[in-house]
């Protein structure tokens, strides 16, 4: 599957999420993103350094600015199970807006065409690092990193595009 790009429609898929009441839910991407402006960003792995120390904090810290510019949802997706995503989310007590969604079996990442084989690092098939802006499911910005870098997929670039 070719990687998702500008002009494409965001595919639908089921992601796992422990909601505010600590209930495990399966949420549909279309359910979260239809008729809304959403930021969807992906990381290779919970509890790994660039993801934890740079990529995620960027979106958490800029969440208010993103919301002020009309973003309704900020969705983080990673190929991890929902328990791990919940534990990882807990390490950011200051987070108010970013939803930590679990693509436990990697199905949604594959639907986006953004899978990355990190088996030799002990991670298996994961997601590339990316950030998308979608307006009513239509992708208007698609910043997808090559390899493990963190250059264009941060919150700043999305803010610039809004």
């Amino acid at each position, binding site marked *: 599957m070719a990687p998702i790009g500008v002009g494409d429609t965001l595919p639908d898929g089921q992601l796992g999420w422990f909601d505010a009441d600590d209930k495990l839910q399966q949420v549909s991407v279309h359910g979260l993103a239809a008729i809304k402006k959403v930021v969807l960003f992906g990381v290779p792995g919970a509890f790994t350094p660039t993801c934890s120390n740079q990529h995620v904090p960027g979106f958490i810290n800029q969440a208010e600015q993103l919301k002020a510019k009309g973003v309704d949802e900020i969705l983080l997706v990673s190929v991890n199970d929902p328990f791990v995503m919940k534990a990882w989310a807990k390490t950011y007590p200051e987070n108010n807006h970013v939803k930590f969604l679990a693509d436990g*079996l990697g199905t949604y990442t594959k639907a986006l065409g953004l899978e990355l084989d990190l088996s030799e690092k002990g991670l298996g098939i994961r997601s590339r690092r990316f950030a998308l802006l979608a307006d009513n499911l239509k992708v208007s910005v698609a910043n997808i990193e090559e390899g493990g870098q963190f250059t264009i997929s941060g919150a700043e670039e999305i803010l610039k595009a809004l």
Partner: protein
Amino acid sequence: MASALVRRARGSAAAAPALWAAARGIASVGSDIVSAAPGVSLQKARSWDEGVATKFSTTPLKDIFHGKKVVIFGLPGAYTGVCSQAHVPSYKNNIDKLKEKGIDSVICVSINDPYVLNGWAEKLQAKDAIEFYGDFDGSFHKNLDLEIDLSAALLGHRSHRWSAFVDNGKIKALNVEKAPSEFKVSGAEVILDQI
């Protein structure tokens, strides 16, 4: 791999469990754990930086089991309920008793990546007592027939909840829960009686 399982659960005649176990063909008491999973390595729980420094090296099973008395337990997932609240603490709290009985290492293994496992082990403050290893692609558990499909819980293929006493690679005792949510036979107290 339909070998009969002899499970020495404390005080009970293991009739029903043996039937169930035979149907599942689990690795049995008396078999060699290293030969049961040829060419398989595990990944020691570590931070990413440690991974880079060691060039993401893996640990072959023989390095873990040969010449040692090992108690090893497997569980479905880091950061999940029974695993965090009961299974790991059971071994952490009994580490002295296990060492007194001559156990060289207590190992926790699960189908998670080594970084998630490291974060979890540190959170549980269990890294001093227990060595955590990730079977990130499930090959160790697949070979031992200890895998279970938990895709319904978005966990994918994971490990059963189990424990074993392995002496120089030979499985001397093996306990597998009937369901991963149960915690009856795979705790430290049971295996202490079996060493």
